[in-house]
């Protein structure tokens, strides 16, 4: 019997690889941290707040996102959106993802 913790770790590792793709995919339009979190969770992407917020900053420092503070509302919020580089990279990543999925499908079909 496989320990449950092993399964949980493996699933988390599989998901981790897809998180950046999911985040970038949601940022064609500007979003602030919490709205993005809700958006992703609503679409079934399991990502923690403690992972998402630092990730946004990291992607910004890598030049894939740009950000702007909105101080018009009662509560100031930092909005993130894909930069030009981010848009290009996202397209490349989608191609990589499609390759990965088709390769994995071949492998998993062989397993059946």
């Amino acid at each position: 019997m496989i320990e449950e913790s092993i399964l949980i770790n493996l699933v988390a590792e599989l998901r981790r690889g897809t998180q950046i793709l999911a985040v970038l995919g949601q940022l064609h339009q500007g979003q602030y941290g919490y709205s993005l979190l809700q958006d992703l969770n609503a679409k079934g992407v399991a990502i923690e707040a403690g992972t998402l917020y630092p990730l946004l900053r990291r992607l910004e420092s890598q030049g894939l996102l740009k950000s702007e503070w909105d101080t018009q509302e009662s509560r100031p919020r930092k909005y993130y959106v894909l930069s030009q580089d981010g848009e290009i990279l996202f397209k490349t990543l989608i191609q990589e993802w499609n390759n990965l999925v088709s390769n994995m499908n071949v492998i998993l079909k062989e397993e059946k």
Partner: protein
Amino acid sequence: MKKYTERYIYAVTKRLPVSMRTEVAEELKANIQDMIGSENPSDEVILTTLRKLGHPRVLANQYRGKERYVVAPEYYDDYIGTLKVVGSIFIIVSLVTGLIDAFTSMTSVALVSVIQNVLENIFDHLWEGLMMAFAWTTIGFWIASSVNHNKSCDDWKLSDLPDLPEPNQIKISRVGVMVELVFGISFGLIFIIALQNGIPFVIKDIIQPFIPFFYIGIILELCVGIIKIIYGTWTIPVILVTIINQVYSILLAYFFFTSGFLDSGIYEAIASNSNFTISEAQNGISIAKTMLIWIIVLGGIAETISNLNQYFRFKIKP
């Protein structure tokens, strides 16, 4: 003082570089407020929200992005291995210096005070030695980790690979070496100190020139022990230094016992305290001395031959 949100944000940002702190704090505050929703939340709601964000240390790590180590994971095994070797060497050196200190600072010959003095000195030196071994090894690996941190691990040569261990290599027990050294060196030191303080019927002037050579013998013994620990198996360098040490000991023992260090008064003392005549005592001691020399020399030669045998066994192998 409650201010859970502010305290949480502070717990995160204090772990970040100064340049990041203000902006992370502002952003985190906005995000936490969004997650909480209401303007006057209960403590329970705040705590649930903060728990969702995770431990401040973990969140700070996520914000910082890159992992930081004293010893990088790829160095960890080498670090532990080096720590064992360096630790063993420091244990030996501190035991020896502890013993030397104990014997040279001895003020009383009462057994209890001697034991107390020896234990105190050994413990002091041992603790200091272990701390030094730990500190130096860690500092060394810390520097190596930070210097090579950005270097790619792909940058290695085939010649960097270690040699395969010889299949018939015999392992040297570290504990064995340590026990051997501690006993050998403490007896050696007791012997030297006794000689220096004067033993009845031993002529001080004759033995005096030998004292530096006995000290050299102890240092040699210590070096051989350290080399044994570094190599860990009976390899050629280990066998060679062992042989050199044995040859030195044999020669020293031979010259010492043939130096005529015994005062002739000993024969009279034996004759007056036993049924032997002076000439019988002279003969007896002379025979005993010759036998002792032969035992030491033959024993040493036998050991040296067995070591030489091991040396050639390795050398002949391709």
